[in-house]
């Protein structure tokens, strides 16, 4: 047997065994995620009736969508309030966790204590817990309205003040979403090569410049991952009305699965659109942190 065909045989065996180990996941993905994903789109165009014989499908065209978007007076407000929440929470969470990671990424006492505290919410955060806490007003920053700065902002721009008030109403909950992002950012910060920063300092770059010209470009892919992670977390955890409306529609005999599918599909489109925007804003084509670092290294070394 020649060496070449031997290599081929090994390659084929590798492929077969690899797929064997992948088999459970691939099966599950097809049955429980890929096909249901397509099926939901399909179902959303039908009126689904549950009878003794099973499910009865009647083509309904865009009726479910029209019902969801225009005739149901609850769905659109719920969707809009979800969008407002994502729009205000997501950037805040990403930026806050980055700032906290910067503060924690220096030699200091109590560092591990802070990290343990900031990670704690990841463990206890669940829908029922969050709604109980928000219900009891235990997450609000109180007394914001009396702050001088806030009054200034309110005079200057009422919508901005409204957004701020909205944010601070559940500020602790916003903070609770930063648990995993902080750890990811610290991890990224620690991997930045100290020699680039050193070279920049020798060239009399200030730490402000270093932050914007070195740290943030290197961490850009991590920003992307965290933005996506946060968007997904918010879409699942939040105690938003849309999720409960989908639930209710599932059990409702009038609208049924068809309407529920339309709701779910519109909601998912909104979530995916958010992720898409985050992706377009933050992507750096084909550059991993390592590559960016190398590029910057070359740049600074060339000087």
């Amino acid at each position, binding site marked *: 047997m020649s060496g070449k065909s031997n290599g081929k045989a090994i390659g084929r065996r590798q492929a077969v065994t690899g797929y*064997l*180990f992948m088999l459970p996941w691939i099966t599950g993905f097809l049955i429980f995620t890929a096909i249901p994903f397509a099926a*939901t789109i399909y*179902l959303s165009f039908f009126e689904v009736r549950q009878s003794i014989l099973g499910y009865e499908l009647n083509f309904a065209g865009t009726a479910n969508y029209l019902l969801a978007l225009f005739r149901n007076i609850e769905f659109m407000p719920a969707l809009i309030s979800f969008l407002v929440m994502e729009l205000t929470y997501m950037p805040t969470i990403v930026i806050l966790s980055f700032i906290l990671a910067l503060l924690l990424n*220096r030699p200091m006492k109590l560092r591990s204590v802070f990290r343990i*505290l900031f990670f704690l919410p990841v463990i206890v955060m669940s829908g029922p817990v969050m709604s109980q806490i928000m219900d009891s007003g235990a997450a609000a920053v109180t007394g914001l309205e009396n702050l001088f700065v806030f009054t200034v902002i309110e005079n200057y721009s009422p919508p901005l003040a409204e957004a701020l008030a909205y944010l601070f109403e559940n500020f*602790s909950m916003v903070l609770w979403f930063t648990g995993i992002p902080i750890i990811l950012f610290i991890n990224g910060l620690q991997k930045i090569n100290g020699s680039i920063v050193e070279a920049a300092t020798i060239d009399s770059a200030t730490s402000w410049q270093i932050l914007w010209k070195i740290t943030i470009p290197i961490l850009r892919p991590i920003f992307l991952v965290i933005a996506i992670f946060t968007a997904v977390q918010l879409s699942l955890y939040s105690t938003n009305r849309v999720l409960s409306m989908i639930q209710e529609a599932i059990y409702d005999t009038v609208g049924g699965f068809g309407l529920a599918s339309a709701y*779910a599909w519109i*909601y*998912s489109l909104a979530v995916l659109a958010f992720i898409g925007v985050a992706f377009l804003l933050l992507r750096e084509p084909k550059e991993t942190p390592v590559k960016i670092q190398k590029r910057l290294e070359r740049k600074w070394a060339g000087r």
Partner: protein
Amino acid sequence: MKTVREKIRRLCRGSVIGQIAVYAVLILISYQFLYPILRMISLAMMSEKDIMNPSVTWIPKGWTFNNIRIAVQTLDLKKTLTGSLWFSSLLAVCQTFVSALTGFAFARFEFPGKRFWFVMVLLSFIIPTPVVVIPRLIIFTGIQEAPWGAQMIGTPIPQMLMTLFGQGVYSAVLILISYNFTRMIPRSLDEAAAIDGANSFQIFVHIILRLSVSTILVIFLFSFVWNWNESYLTFTFLRGRIPLLPQRLGMFDNLFASYGQGGGSAQSPEFRINEAYKMAGTLVAILPLLVMYLFVQRQFIKGIENAGITGE
């Protein structure tokens, strides 16, 4: 303008003032982080009078453990705690197994379409759960109503199957953790075993799993916590048939009302829902997780740190 900024910076850098400023900010933020939990503890200890009394903000005047006692009864703690424990453990075992398996496949084998499936793993994380839940429900009611079928809805079987086939809560993250840890195990060990005649499955069991006990613990812990806290799928498929702590907390207000009516009619004015009872209930519900975190916080943070989720 610039010189002022420069001055401030020089002042901040390495100086005592800068350090104090950083500490001040961190402590303020920590306070805000813990505020709900501190508030919870404080409110849970308050008597009804303290709740009404505007002069009582943090420290209750009439300390009482009565709220906690009633919360424990309302939540039916003994039953729900055991329910949650075994339900979450069961799903976590399934999820750990499939994550280890898939991570091993990605870390050790070259097969056509590997990149494609890797992207699919990431995609499975992004696809919102509500969009796949309806067909999943149809599948399981279908199995249930088939002539050979068995009870599905209301049992842990649907979630067990989904988890076992890699579609559990945040499965993609756990697969990435497993993938990255497996990559760190030197390949030469596999090769040595292969030369000694071990097949891939034996390598997986005897080398990879043996060497990644700490990783498996990390994956298990995350999976346990996420399954414990998951409420959307659990509500859809379990329909409250197994008493679970978070689900019970979700119905706390209603349960409380009925408990007050059914229980002691003589003391019924006492059974008006208020923040003290609600927070006592929440505190009791998160206490098991808090205690667990106290012991294994290092694993949690290490797990995320080394997960390589950020794609290096």
